[in-house]
């Protein structure tokens, strides 16, 4: 069922965008505004730019191993013990990411649309679709991400367009309302929305033109940062910080207010279209998790492992957890995810440089 693996630069970029944008954007403006107040959009932009640098560092790390992803070079770089520990931590991180993504989306749907439907059913459907997306391989996943991106983009533009109905005074002063520690706390809270760009480590070996990878990563991160920042600006201008901090999912509320003569509410339609992006996010994480298992157990068959992983995670769909609690947990998890990826990039990059230099000297 796996397709031939060749990715264009655009697919590489869209895969990163799809891995980043899912549920986080619904609550991002509130989460950032709770700490940073009216400077929420500044901290989101700042977080994006910092993580852009981390993403470029990760890309550089990947470029030292053009034929392998972390499942391949993890052990080679860090040795059998540390490498395995690292792979295992990475795998667990991916599992948590998948569980959070599907549970949060399911909780949003049950909160706003299907009140009596068990969220485990919805989470199960997201998981099933993610397994299907992961099983078709990185090329298939990238194609699916392209289509999802094209379908999702008009709704995102609709969110940003609500900026026109906002009040400028809600955004002022830009900086000065809060202190530095609050700004940093806001940036930390926004981390979950930026988690997921490490898919680039796994997609790099499949690129048609690896030399264009850095540019694709750059533009993908810039795009996501721009979308997040504009969404936060629109939410702030629309609601004001006092109202914004009381809304659980302000982005969806903005969509529910957008009206035309043919469609009176866009939040329901937006949620339908958003499913694709959510599946891309959890699908990429499932793909990464499967590859990491293959790194730990080299003989594992990809398709079977992906299906078994999905079946294993099915257990986690059970039970109802309030959305607020899930979002809070996601914020903590996001911090851990970003720290993990950042530290990995920062610490492994010089190691990879030296290993690569040594191997080249030895003529490998």
């Amino acid at each position, binding site marked *: 069922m796996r397709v031939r693996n060749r990715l264009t630069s655009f697919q590489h970029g869209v895969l990163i965008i799809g891995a980043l944008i899912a549920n986080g954007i619904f609550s991002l403006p509130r989460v950032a505004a709770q700490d940073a107040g009216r400077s929420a959009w500044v901290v989101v932009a700042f977080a994006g730019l910092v993580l852009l640098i981390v993403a470029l560092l990760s890309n550089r790390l990947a470029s030292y191993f053009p034929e392998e992803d972390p499942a391949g070079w993890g052990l080679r770089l860090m040795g059998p013990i540390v490498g395995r520990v690292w792979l295992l931590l990475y795998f667990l991180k991916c599992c948590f990411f998948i569980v959070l993504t599907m549970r949060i989306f399911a909780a949003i749907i049950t909160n706003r*649309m299907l009140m009596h439907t068990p969220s485990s*059913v919805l989470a199960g459907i997201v998981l099933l679709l993610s397994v299907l997306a992961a099983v078709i391989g990185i090329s298939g996943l990238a194609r699916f991400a392209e289509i999802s991106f094209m379908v999702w983009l008009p709704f995102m533009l609709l969110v940003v367009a609500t900026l026109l109905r906002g009040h400028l005074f*809600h955004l002022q*002063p830009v900086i*000065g309302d809060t202190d530095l520690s609050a700004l940093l706390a806001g940036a930390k809270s926004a981390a979950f929305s930026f988690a997921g760009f490490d898919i680039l480590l796994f997609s790099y070996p499949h690129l048609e033109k690896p030399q264009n990878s850095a540019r694709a990563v750059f533009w993908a991160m810039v795009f996501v940062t721009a979308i997040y920042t504009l969404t936060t600006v629109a939410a702030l201008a629309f609601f*004001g910080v*006092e*109202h914004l901090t009381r809304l659980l999912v302000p982005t969806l509320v903005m969509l529910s207010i957008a*009206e035309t003569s043919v469609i009176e*509410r866009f939040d329901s339609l937006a949620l339908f279209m958003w499913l694709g992006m959510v599946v891309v996010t959890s699908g990429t994480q499932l793909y990464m998790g499967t590859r990491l298992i293959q790194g730990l157990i080299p003989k594992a068959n990809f398709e079977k492992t992906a299906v078994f992983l999905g079946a294993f995670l099915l257990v986690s769909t059970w039970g109802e957890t309030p959305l607020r609690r899930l979002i809070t947990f996601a914020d903590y998890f996001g911090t851990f995810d970003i720290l993990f990826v950042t530290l990995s990039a920062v610490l492994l990059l010089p190691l990879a440089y030296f290993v690569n230099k040594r191997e080249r000297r030895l003529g490998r």
Partner: protein
Amino acid sequence: MITARRLLVLTLTICSLLMTGCWDALPVEKRIFATAIGLDWVPEQPHLTVTVIHPLMEEKRARENRVLTFRAHSFGEALAMLHHSSGQQLSLGVLSVIVIGRQAAEQPLSSFVNDLMAHPDLRLGAYVLVASGTAQELLAVTPPDHQRIAVHLRDVLHRAVRRSDAPATTLYDFVTHVMTPGADAITALLSPIGTLEHRPPPGQGAEGAGGGGQQAEGGGKNALPSPPPEDVQVVGAALWQGDTMVGELTLPMAQHVFVAMGIADAMLMKVLFAPDERFFPGGSVMTLSIEGARADWSLDLAEGRPHYTLRLDVRLSLHNYAGTVDLSKQENSELFEKIIASTFEQNMLEALQRLVSTGSDALSLGQLVRLKYPAEWDSKGWRDQLKTATFDVQTKVEIRNMGLQLLRLEPVDK
């Protein structure tokens, strides 16, 4: 691969079985759609009266409204009573208007708003209006052309917004203003009125003309029953301070406030001019068409008292100047513009004073203080501070169209 495929098929089967629950399925004809909600406060008994208008779905009576009224301590309780009595699920997804009766508006409405916002499919784009009497009375009006009352109210408001006679305050606007210190809400004030349109008496009406209105009872045996109100009109604006209504403005004053907000486009304003030797020897009421207005605010804070300067650039047209002065001459038109500007400034000052005297910050003047003097900004004490505000209005008027100029007509000798 075979094993993986079987596992996938098994998972698909389980999911398919799980999906057959249809837990939230409820056909549209089995719901109650609330198109309008009215809120009244009964001071004699501490109760809220919640009126829910919903259209009947049977084919022949499709245009009728059904009015459900509940007395409860809270909106949430009223909804529970509705659910209990009808056995049907209330849907607020097509809510068009929320009408708040005068007396209810003067009570704190936070709990009502909270209960409303907790409803999962609430339409946040519903308009918030205040009724000059009770909401029940307003919702009992039988609109022309047998429209649904909620749709009619919405249309009336839309027309008023286009004329800049009323603000388009939706529920989310209202809630934002309630929660933002230094920026209060201003909503349209509506009143039921009679109509010149001929209507058949009640009981002889066309099918589907009935509304759930209450018949007013006249006093005495021989007294003629007074006809039910048959239309609604925007009569002014309601001023809010947080979640409580603190005052109202007449329509002319409200129009001046809208000009000060910079939202006056295509507004028709009737202005009374004091007698002027040259232009209005006996005084005049002129209709001005405000085509656009730019309002620039600036602020100075002296000893805790805010002083606001409002610079207005107004473009307008005249419609019914009846005088003998030839306005096509530049010196005449410039002088005329100054006279209009002066009258405008006086009226504007009056409106602004009236506004701040109520304690309502509908112009978001507090935000200017917060931005320019953050150290002096006191969100809690702002309401009192606002009442001490003074204003200076500087208006520049440009008349684009002088309108019809009527000369005195002398009888022609035949």
